[in-house]
């Protein structure tokens, strides 16, 4: 087997967290090699340049690897899961197809056990992460406006907020009439040119990628700077297992290169950034006499406590055009009115509302995230006209609590193209989450009605909504109750780090990428500090 030169640090995965760590370490003079199973996405390859762009959302540009089935994807057995995991395998990872809604976790999100008596506290807090939130915001470029009373004061946003347009102003009116919190979303999408990147032209489908680099996928934010600082990125390199030296420390990986040849990459430290499903998959596939149940898994918690953020969807239909096809698809307004625990609601913890844009022509016909297709036949034209460009979608994004039965393990039969066992996902929606989403749907009906909707439809649980993969190698002080420590080191293998969503202890009620990246930068700085 060919063996590459030994790296100081090997990073596995070039997505949101891997890119941030590679940049930070390379900037400190540390020799970084990153192995990524996907490739660079050519800006000219995005569907936005084709008239039939919307058709690609459910085929080769689907967020579901089981639908997309590209050579760089691996299959996921999701038969026992109520939610389908979504991800993208490329330089930039899932930031290629995310909507770039960019809220942070709040201070209380790191003290869930102390404040609410459930789940666990994080071993780090908001104050520890705050400088990393700010650093990450500068690297990604955030559109927004300060002063949101849902958060401690933040540093100035890099560009003004995404324009609300008719749709956003309409739903803001609903929140105002009810006296509920709302605020223009923090979005990792530029509304002005910034840091050598172009401003958004409001084309719409950010979920299919951004061909002009206005949206902050890490292939256009962190990676150019990481490479300039000396990091080396190897694409089409699929890692099979992490290897151990005789001292019990990680000493590298075995991977398949672009030609399918088995190679070894040695390193003094290994950083896992392969997402909340890919990371436990790799650990569980790295068995040895020392770790017969999977690497760094003496706690038995690798793969357990999977959290997704269950989504319920509400859609209001209005009597006038709203221009919902214009502007970034996932971003206009956030509301955290029902975010903190109020036990009188019948559940613990809380949720956010994320108000997205309207539906494009095909999605309008097929019902979008609600799934209620417009009827066919002679009533079709009238029914379609009543819906197209007249809808506002409100997503209820609930805080999942960590539960060990929700997990990732290895499928006994299914493998990827290289014969590596595929992940198997088991996930059941908890009663607490169900009550939370039900509460959110009732409140969404109120706010849509207050904004003028004449009818409201719901999807009580979005199956194709597993954007956020979290908790499967969580952080903590106790080696019996966690996989990594507060510095991201595996308790069992102290030169093996985990920096992706797997590290998350409790998942809050907001999108996690901003927090995942802040945690990754915090862990990188610990590595730099200990080296020096």
């Amino acid at each position, binding site marked *: 087997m060919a063996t590459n030169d030994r790296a100081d640090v090997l990073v596995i995965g070039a997505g949101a967290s891997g890119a941030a760590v590679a940049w930070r370490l390379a900037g400190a003079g540390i020799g970084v090699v990153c192995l990524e199973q996907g490739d660079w996405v050519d800006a000219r390859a995005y569907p936005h340049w084709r008239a039939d762009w919307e058709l690609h959302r459910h085929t080769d540009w689907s967020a579901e690897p089981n639908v997309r089935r590209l050579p760089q994807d691996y299959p996921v057995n999701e038969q026992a899961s109520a939610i389908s995991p979504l991800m993208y395998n490329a330089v930039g990872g899932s930031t290629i197809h995310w909507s770039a809604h960019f809220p942070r976790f709040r201070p209380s999100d790191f003290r869930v056990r*102390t404040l609410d008596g459930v789940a666990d506290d994080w071993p780090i807090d908001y104050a520890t992460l705050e400088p990393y939130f700010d650093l990450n915001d500068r690297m990604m470029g955030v559109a927004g406006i300060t002063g949101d009373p849902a958060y401690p004061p933040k540093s100035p946003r890099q560009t003004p907020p995404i*324009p609300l347009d008719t749709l956003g102003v309409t739903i803001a009116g609903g929140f105002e009439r009810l006296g509920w919190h709302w605020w223009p979303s923090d979005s990792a999408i530029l509304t002005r040119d910034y840091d050598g990147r172009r401003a958004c*032209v409001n084309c719409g489908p950010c979920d299919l990628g951004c061909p002009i680099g206005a949206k902050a996928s890490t292939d256009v934010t962190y990676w150019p700077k990481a490479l300039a600082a000396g990091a080396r990125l190897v694409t089409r390199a699929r890692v099979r297992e992490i290897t151990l030296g005789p001292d019990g420390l990680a000493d590298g990986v075995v991977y398949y290169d672009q030609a399918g040849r088995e190679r070894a990459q040695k390193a003094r430290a290994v950083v896992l950034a392969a997402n909340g499903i890919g990371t436990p998959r790799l650990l569980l596939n790295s068995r040895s006499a020392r770790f017969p149940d999977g690497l760094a898994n003496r706690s038995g918690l690798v793969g357990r406590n999977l959290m997704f953020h269950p989504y319920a969807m509400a859609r209001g239909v209005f009597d006038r055009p709203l221009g919902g096809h214009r502007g970034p698809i996932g971003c206009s307004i956030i509301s955290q009115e029902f975010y903190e625990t109020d036990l009188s609601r019948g559940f613990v913890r809380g949720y956010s509302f994320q108000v997205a844009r309207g539906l494009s022509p*095909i999605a309008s*016909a097929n019902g979008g995230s609600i799934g209620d297709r*417009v009827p066919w036949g002679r009533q079709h*034209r009238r029914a379609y006209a009543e819906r197209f460009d007249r809808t506002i979608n409100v997503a209820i994004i609930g805080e999942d609590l960590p539960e060990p039965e929700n997990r990732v393990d290895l499928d006994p039969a299914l493998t990827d193209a290289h014969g590596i066992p595929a992940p198997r996902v088991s996930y059941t929606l908890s009663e607490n989450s169900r009550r939370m989403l039900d509460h959110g749907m009732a409140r969404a009906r109120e706010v849509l009605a207050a904004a003028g909707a004449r009818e409201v439809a719901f999807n009580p649980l979005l199956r194709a909504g597993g954007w956020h993969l979290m908790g499967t190698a969580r952080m903590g002080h106790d080696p019996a109750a966690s996989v990594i420590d507060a510095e991201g080191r595996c308790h069992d293998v102290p030169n093996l780090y985990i920096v992706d969503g797997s590290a998350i202890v409790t998942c809050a009620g907001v999108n996690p990428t901003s927090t995942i990246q802040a945690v990754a930068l915090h862990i990188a700085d610990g590595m730099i500090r200990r080296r020096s």
Partner: protein
Amino acid sequence: MTRGPLVAKRDLLTLVLDTLVPAAEEFPESGALALDHVLAMAAASAEVGLLLSRALEAIEEATQADGARGFAGLSAGQREDVLRRVERSHPEPFEALVRHAYDGFYSHPATITRLGLEPEPVQPRGHRIESAALPDLTRVAARGPIYRRA
């Protein structure tokens, strides 16, 4: 393997598409606009081709069960009745048929134009958003912090 039967039933498929999305107002029926897309999807995926073939076979069977000589000989209302029966008896193939019909119809430039949108790709043109005044955020801020200090 799957493209052949579908192409051979091109006339039936066109009539079925026309029934799913009939002409209305200034919009044409979907047979003219969605047919090429549906055929292309059947050709690209054996799974899709099989589903669509099953849907057409079920439509033919349901037509014959009515004693009719062919789908083409039915009135618009009778065609809808046949399709509703097939929708109930063969939900998965029928759902695929409707979905691909809608995909083809609502991605066609002629439809996009009639919806009042530009039929060209969304890049590089993007969309112009008129700058509306941001609603007054001072009222939201004035309600005070809503986060817990941990």
